């Protein structure tokens, strides 16, 4: 089935998400849609899937124009979609999820037996090993994704759209998925693969369409180099340098021993972690999203329920203290998601700037707030941090992402600290603000504060780190120096212990699995000098484009066409 989009435009109010996009997906093809986060890939696919109506333009299937009023129409036309956030009902079984919307009936009653048989059949053909009667919420993420693929296949999808399918997968699961995609293609399904990860895109695609700011900027083949792809995708060579002196570290500020976090369902999310952070040192934590980093930061500030082990700050035990006590003892905390955890959207900028400080003597007289002092404080912070806002009395939700993040950073750095913990400090932040925030963090380090940064952007890790800690499945795989090569970090992020990664040389590229989803931008052809990254005392060059490409996108492993390392049969 051939799918053709002509001049498709989608506007949300004044904002143009897609502008005159032309795209043709041929049968037996893996067609990649490559672009930064926010480039308009997902919007385009939602148009294609009937979730959005295009503002203008046409969609044709095998030469005949179609128009979808809803996903039902798109599915009937043979288009299936695996959403970035799975569209599965957690309390339903696999069979119920697969049947939903496409139910077989026997008279009045539902016929799940037919669905079960179809699931078993597809499961066998592609080696999915999915039990039709398992309840979805009990399944691992990788298996849930297969259920999503089964959903599309059961509906006889001729075109399968996969929206950022590897974001939540481990490197091994990613490799398995890529293999499944090839199999599907060979069996006649066309695949639209949406991604911003160059390595995966080059490994699996037949055609690559690059999209930037809602427009198609080029169509290339998989043989195109990562540098070229990155340049197309980012459209500019952005290179930022954070000047950073050698860390002057003496002694230990934060001492973490046997720290363990257990989730509600009994899964150990952070497993017996042990490390130290010295005053005036930045320890950067690297890892694929969801490998215990979030839990580590939350446990340090008292936001996890079931914590054991110890975390001492200047000798004071933090585990067991309340969040308020921990913050008051000199810990600054920037949560991963500013809009849900860092800010109260309907509160004013001024109120948000004192969200965890309103009880301090400066801002409150007994039970009464000093509104004047709060407002005055906001005025000076807005100036110092260059927060662009109409007024300190505007609701913080009206600010741009970068300015919102500056509010959080200003609040947390605006008081004397012993430890600064920041999770994804520059996620979704514009380039100018990233530089500003990085400088502030380094300045805080230079004041003698111990700093713990969690980032899934390897370039951010290299820009800031004095030492790098790598997490995998809740365990600390090891702590390495700031000049550790990307591929070594990638392998640690995929679960290889430090010892097996670091000593041997030369690097065996066939074992590079890239630690993929931790994508960090490698930018244009002036790409980050990952072979000599950020040594203390030097300057770290960081290329930034707002969101990650892939650590594997480094020039050094351009020759790596396909990861062989640890695929299971």
């Amino acid at each position, binding site marked *: 089935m051939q799918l053709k989009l002509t001049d498709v435009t989608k506007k949300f109010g004044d904002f143009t998400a897609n502008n005159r996009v032309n795209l043709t997906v041929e049968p037996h093809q893996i067609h990649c849609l490559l672009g930064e986060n926010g480039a308009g890939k997902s919007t385009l696919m939602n148009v294609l899937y009937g979730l959005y109506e295009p503002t203008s333009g046409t969609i044709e299937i095998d030469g005949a124009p179609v128009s979808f009023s809803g996903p039902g129409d798109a599915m009937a036309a043979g288009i299936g979609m695996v959403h970035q956030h799975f569209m599965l009902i957690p309390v339903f079984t696999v069979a119920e999820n697969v049947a939903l919307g496409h139910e077989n009936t026997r008279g009045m009653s539902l016929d799940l037996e037919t669905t079960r048989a179809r699931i078993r059949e597809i499961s066998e053909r592609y080696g999915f090993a999915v039990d039709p009667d398992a309840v979805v919420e009990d399944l691992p993420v990788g298996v849930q994704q297969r259920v999503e693929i089964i959903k599309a296949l059961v509906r006889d999808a001729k075109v399968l759209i996969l929206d950022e399918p590897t974001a939540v997968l481990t490197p091994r699961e990613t490799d398995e998925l890529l293999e499944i995609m090839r199999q599907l293609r060979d069996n006649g399904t066309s695949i639209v693969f949406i991604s911003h990860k160059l390595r995966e895109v080059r490994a699996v695609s037949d055609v690559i369409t690059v999209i930037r700011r809602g427009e198609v900027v080029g169509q290339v083949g998989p043989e195109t180099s990562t540098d070229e792809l990155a340049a197309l995708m980012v459209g500019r060579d952005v290179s930022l340098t954070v000047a950073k002196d050698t860390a002057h570290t003496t002694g230990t500020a934060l001492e973490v021993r046997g720290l363990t976090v257990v989730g509600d369902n009994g899964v150990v999310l952070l497993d017996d972690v042990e490390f130290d952070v010295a005053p005036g040192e930045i320890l950067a934590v690297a890892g694929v999203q969801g490998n215990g980093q979030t839990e580590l930061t939350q446990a340090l500030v008292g936001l996890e329920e079931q914590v054991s082990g110890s975390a001492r700050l200047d000798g004071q035990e933090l585990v067991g203290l309340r969040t308020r006590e921990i913050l008051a003892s000199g810990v600054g905390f920037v949560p991963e998601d500013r809009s849900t955890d860092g800010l109260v959207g309907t509160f004013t900028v001024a109120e948000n700037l004192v969200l965890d400080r309103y009880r301090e003597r400066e801002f409150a007289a007994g039970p*009464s707030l000093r509104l004047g002092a709060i407002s005055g404080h906001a005025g000076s912070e807005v100036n110092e941090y260059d927060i662009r806002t109409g007024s300190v009395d505007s609701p913080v939700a009206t600010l741009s992402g970068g300015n919102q993040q500056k509010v959080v950073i200003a609040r947390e750095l605006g008081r004397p600290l012993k430890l600064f913990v920041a999770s994804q400090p520059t996620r979704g932040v514009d380039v100018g603000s990233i530089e500003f925030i990085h400088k502030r963090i380094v300045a805080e380090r230079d004041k003698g504060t111990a700093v713990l940064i969690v980032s899934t952007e390897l370039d951010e890790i290299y820009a800031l780190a004095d030492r790098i800690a790598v997490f995998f499945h809740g365990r600390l795989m090891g702590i390495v120096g700031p000049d550790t090569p990307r591929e070594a970090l990638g392998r640690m992020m995929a679960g290889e212990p430090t010892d097996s990664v670091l000593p041997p040389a030369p690097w065996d590229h066939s074992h590079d699995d890239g630690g993929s989803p931790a994508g960090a931008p490698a930018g244009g052809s002036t790409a980050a000098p990952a072979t000599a990254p950020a040594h203390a005392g030097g300057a770290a060059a960081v290329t930034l484009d707002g969101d990650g490409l892939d650590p594997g996108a480094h020039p050094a492993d351009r020759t790596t066409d396909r990861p062989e390392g640890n695929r299971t049969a």
Partner: protein
Amino acid sequence: MSASTAPATSDQVSAPPPTELSAEDPRRTLLGSTLQSVLAVVVALILGGLLIAVTDERVRQAAGYFFARPGDTLSAMWRAASSAYIAMFYGAVYNPNGSTLADRLYPLTETLTVATPLILAGLGVALAFRAGLFNIGAQGQILIGATLAAWVGFAWQLPVGLHLLAVVVAGAAGGAVWGGIVGLIKARTGAHEVILTIMLNYVALNLVAWLLTLPGFQREGSSNPISPPVADTAMFPKLLGDHFRLHWGFVVAVLATVAVAWLLNRSTVGFELRAVGANPRAARTAGISVTRGFVVVMLLAGLLAGLAGTAQIAGTEHSLTSGVAASFGFDAITVALLGRSRPWGTFFAGILYGAFRAGGVTMQSMTGTNIDIVLVVQSLIVLFVALPPLFKFATRRSQEAAA
């Protein structure tokens, strides 16, 4: 209704706060929302008038020959509705038939008297709304507050002044405990406050009914479930002399409004409560205890409703019955909604609904229109305040006015 047992600190507390009736529209200006409220009142009154008109006996007679003389029907309808509303106005604001100025203004003081418990309980509901909680339980909190106030009022003997103070404290404490239970259970188990408060209303009602069968509580020599009258020292003094029923409870309501306004906008506790209501996860990350917030706000909400119960006992009723709360607890929800959960908005909404009630009594006696029409008008107002089409109209008008 989600009533999960997950710990209250889990993500289920991140539900959007019910401070507004519907999804907040950024275009909603203060002028627009005021205009919307006024329009809602007007449209509700018109519909109420229509209901009065079509059920009127004379209108139905005139309708019998509608096609012969349609004018008769229409004028009968107008007469039925307008006379009812005029009677309501006489009963709520100004009675031109009074012989003295005091007589003529008597209705206004009645309105304020009836408004007193509505404002107090409405503030309790509004405060909980601002912290993201539905307090459907004002009814039970009023009842328990009234029970304790009445008991201290009739069973204790204390000097003048001190006795009234003790009654007020007891009433406030009773309501606070009944509200606090909800906060505590929600904080500890994550149970949904809507279910808890509804159930506790009925528990309170049965508890009071049972107490009123006990020898210590039931009036001696009476077979009815009614307590002895409270001592004179336990009553709120009249505010404007014995000619009027208006009592110092109204001053308590004004002070409570001032206090809630200060608490919400200018105090650290209010800052915490608003943060918990607007984004519990961010509040928790900033070191504010969400669960403690639930307990505190339900204590305070119950306290305010308890004061409403006190106003009933020490101000107007003077003895405890199981009907002492009337329907004030449910009316308080509509009062808080009409007042958009803001302290002074709630205050004026309370006075408006007080006027409906006070006027409704006069209306029923003067024109025979059943007082239940007041419930219809009140609930229609709240529905229309939330109705987007009406809101669009109001916004357009206010934009035109601004242009």
